[in-house]
C-alpha cells in the first residue's frame, strides 16, 4: 500500500534521507521493546517517531525513584506503577500513527511463540542471563577471553567493556541488578581485582568505578540514539547494523564499535 498524504507530510524529512521504500518497510514492522528504563524510554521515543506499525512495551517491574531522572515517559506522579503501563500514554502521544500496547509479564515466563509475532525484539537493562533466553550468542560474546587479545587490540578495547564485565559479575554475586548496590566502590574494586588481577588498573582505572553509579539522562539519549538507529537500519533493511558492540565512554565523549566474538 502506498504511503498516505498524512504519512508523507509527517515523515517528509526522513523520507528525503532513506527513501519511500525504507519508510514503507518501517511502517509494516512490529517490534517488542523489553525494559522501560531510561534507555528503553529513549529507544521507544526514537522508534515511535520514526513510524513503525506497532510497538509492544514489555516490563514486569515497577518504576522507582531512579527513573525520575531518566524515564521521561513516566509522569512524575506515576512513579511506583508498572513501567510499561505508566509509559503507555506518553508513548502514544508521540505518534498517533503507531499502535502501542503494554504488557506486564516477566520476559522469562513467555513462550518462544510469543516472540515470533515480532519482527524485532530490543532489550534494555537486562543482564546476560536473561538475554540468553533469546540470544545465546550475546552471552558467548561477553565471555570472550580478553587475555587472548593482542596488546594493541587490548588498548583499543573500550574501558566500558571491562566496566560492563565488572558490573555483570557484581550483579551475579549479589543476585541484584539495582544501581544503588554499586554505591560502594570498594566492593566493585574487589570484583575488578579478582577478575583482572595485576592488569586491573590498566584495563579499568578506578575513576570508572567511581562514575558508574546511577543513570544519567544524556548518556541514555546517546546510547538510545545509536540503538534506535540500529533498530531502524534492521527494520528498513537498508544497511548492516553495528557489528557487534557499541561502547560509549562519557568521560572521553567517545563511542566505538567493537567486534567481540569467541
Amino acid at each position, binding site marked *: 500500500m502506498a504511503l498516505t498524504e498524512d504519512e*508523507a*507530510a509527517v515523515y517528509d524529512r526522513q523520507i528525503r534521507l532513506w527513501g519511500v521504500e525504507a519508510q514503507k518497510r518501517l511502517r509494516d514492522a512490529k517490534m517488542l521493546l523489553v525494559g522501560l528504563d531510561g534507555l528503553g524510554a529513549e529507544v521507544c521515543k526514537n522508534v515511535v517517531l520514526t513510524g513503525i506499525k506497532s510497538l509492544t512495551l514489555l516490563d514486569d517491574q515497577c518504576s522507582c525513584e531512579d527513573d525520575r531522572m531518566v524515564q521521561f515517559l513516566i509522569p512524575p506522579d506515576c512513579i511506583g506503577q508498572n513501567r510499561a503501563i505508566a509509559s503507555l500514554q506518553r508513548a502514544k502521544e508521540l505518534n498517533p500513527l503507531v499502535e502501542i500496547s503494554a504488557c506486564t509479564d516477566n520476559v522469562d515466563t513467555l513462550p518462544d511463540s510469543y516472540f515470533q509475532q515480532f519482527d524485532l525484539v530490543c532489550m534494555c537493562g537486562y543482564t546476560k542471563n536473561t538475554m540468553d533466553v533469546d540470544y545465546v550468542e550475546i552471552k558467548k560474546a561477553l565471555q570472550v577471553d580478553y587475555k587472548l587479545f593482542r596488546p594493541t587490540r587490548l588498548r583499543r578495547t573500550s574501558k566500558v567493556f571491562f566496566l560492563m564485565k565488572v558490573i555483570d559479575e557484581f550483579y551475579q554475586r549479589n543476585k541484584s541488578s539495582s544501581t544503588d548496590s554499586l554505591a560502594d566502590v570498594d566492593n566493585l574494586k574487589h570484583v575488578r581485582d579478582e577478575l583482572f588481577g595485576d592488569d586491573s588498573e590498566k584495563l579499568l582505572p578506578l575513576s570508572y568505578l567511581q562514575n558508574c553509579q546511577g543513570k*544519567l539522562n*544524556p548518556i541514555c539519549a546517546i546510547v538510545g540514539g545509536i540503538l534506535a538507529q540500529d533498530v531502524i537500519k534492521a527494520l528498513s533493511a537498508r544497511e548492516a547494523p553495528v557489528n557487534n558492540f557499541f561502547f560509549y565512554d562519557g568521560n572521553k565523549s567517545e563511542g566505538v564499535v567493537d567486534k567481540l566474538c569467541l
Partner: protein
Amino acid sequence: MLTQLRKQLFECRVLVVGAGGIGCELIKNLVMTGFHNIELVDLDTIDVSNLNRQFLFRKEHVGQSKAKVAKENALRFNPDVNILARHDSIINPDYDVDYFRQFTIVLNALDNRAARNHVNRMCLAADVPLIESGSAGYLGQVTVIKKANFLYNNYGETECYECQPKPTQKSYPSCTIRNTPTEPIHCIVWAKHLFNQLFAELDEDNEVTPDAEDPEATDANKQIDQGSDSNLKISTRPWAESVGYDPQLLLRKLFQDDIKYLLKMDKLWQKRKPPVPLDFDNLLEGDSCFINDNTVLKDQLVWNIHECVQEFLHSVTSLKKRLEMSKSYLIWDKDDDVAMHFVASSANVRAHVFGIPLKSLFDVKSMAGNIIPAIATTNAIVAGLIVTEALKILKGRLDLCRTVIMYKNNLTMKKLIIPCLLEKPNKGCYVCSSKPEVCIRINIDDITIRHLGEEILKKRIGMIAPDVEVDDGSGIILISSEEGETEDIINCKLSQFGIRNGSQLKADDFLQNYSLKLKVIHEYVLMPPRLLFISSSKLTIVKSIIFTAIL
C-alpha cells in the same frame, strides 16, 4: 551524582537558543538531568514536517510557537523547573550583552549561520561559555566555545564559531539565471526570484527578465530593436500590476515574449542550444504522469508540460488573491504549498523551454528550500552530547571538553562518536582576535553605501546594525544605525566620499559590542559578475572568501 554538581545544576541559569530538532531533545535532557533554570528562545512556529523528530510537538500544535509549546510539554517531566519561553528572534536588540551575561552557559540548537554568528559574538562579548551544535541526516557535531579566562586555570581559550571561514552558500551568476540556464537548479533559482518579483517585498536585485547587458551578448545587444520590446524596460512587478496579474498574460510574457527577446541576442546561442518559446497551441496533453506505483509519492511524480502550465495558472490565481487580501506582500516559504507549486511549475516550464530535464515537486522543494534531511536519532544523540559537555563546563573541567563529531556507521570505521581536542583561536579571526580587521576587494566606483551596509556588513560579516565611518580622522559617517541619519547618501558610490585604494573604514556594531577595521582594496576590473573578496588581512589568500555580488 555528586551533591555539589547537583547544587550547581539547581542554581545555574541556562539559555537554550532554538526549540527545533536538537532543541526539543535538549530541553528534555536538561530537565531530566536536574537543570532548574532554563530560558528558551525560538521565533519559529510548528510545522507538520517537524513531527517526525521534534517530539514535544503534536499535530494539534501546528502553527503555534515552538518555544511556548516546548515549555508546556517539558514541564510535564518536572513541574518544578523554571522555564521561560520566548517566541522571539535571538537577534532582537532586547537581548543585549547584559542579557547574555546573566547565564552560566549558552546552548545553541540553531539551524542558520546568521543566528549562530550573532550568538557567538554575544557570548564572546558577555564572556559566557557557548556550546554550538548542528546536525544533518546521520551526521552531527557539538563543540565548546570559550573566551580565554583565568578562572579556568588559564586553560580555555578556544576557537570561536567564526575563526575558520565557512563555505559560502552557492550562488549563480545573474546572466546564467536570467539568460542562459543549463541545469534544473538555475530554473529553480529563477522561479524563486520570480516569486519575489511578483509577490514579495520589492527587491531591485534578482531581476528575472532577460539581461541585455550580458557581457557575452554585448555586440548582438546593439542590434536589437528595443522599440518593439518595451515590456522589457519595465521591471516585472509594475508590468504584472498593469495587467492585473492575469495568469495567461504572465505565462505569455515569461515563456514566450521574454524568450523571443533572448533569442535576439544571437551571440548567446552560437555555442548553446537556443530556447524554444512555449507553444501555446500545441501544449502536449501527453501522458498523464499518474502511474500506479506505490513506491513513489504523489509529489515525486514529474508533471508533463501541460500539467506544469495548469499548475502555473492555478498558483498565480491563488497567490494573486492572497496578495490582494494581505494588502502588503507575501513571503516565500518552502512549507507554503501554493508558493511551492508556483516555484515548481514556473521552474519546470522554464526548464521545458530551455530543454532542461524537469523535476518533481518533491525534488524542487529539496533544492528551493535547501532542505537538510533530519531524523530523531541524530538529534537525540547530539543533544545528549551537548549536555555531557555542559556538565564538564559546570564542573570547571574545560580541559576535558571536546569537539565531538558523530559519523554514520560504516564497515571501515570503528568509531561512531569521535572526540577531538578543541582548537586554539585563529589569531587572524575577524571576530575574536584582539584587533579585528579584514580586507575587502571592491570596485569603489561601483559599490554603493547601501551595498556596503546590506551585502557586505550585514549579510557577509554578520553585523546587525552597523555604524560606519571613514577612519582617516575626517569623521565622515557613511552609515548610521540611527534611523534616517544617513538615508540621503545610501545610493552614493564609495568613491564619492574620498575612499581610495588603501582607505580604511571603521565599522561598529553596538549590540554585538563588535568593532571591525575594513581595508579597502580597489579592484577597478571587477565587472559583472562582480567578484568580491573578503579576507582577514592577517591571513593568507587560501583562507580568503570569494563571493558574487550582484548590484
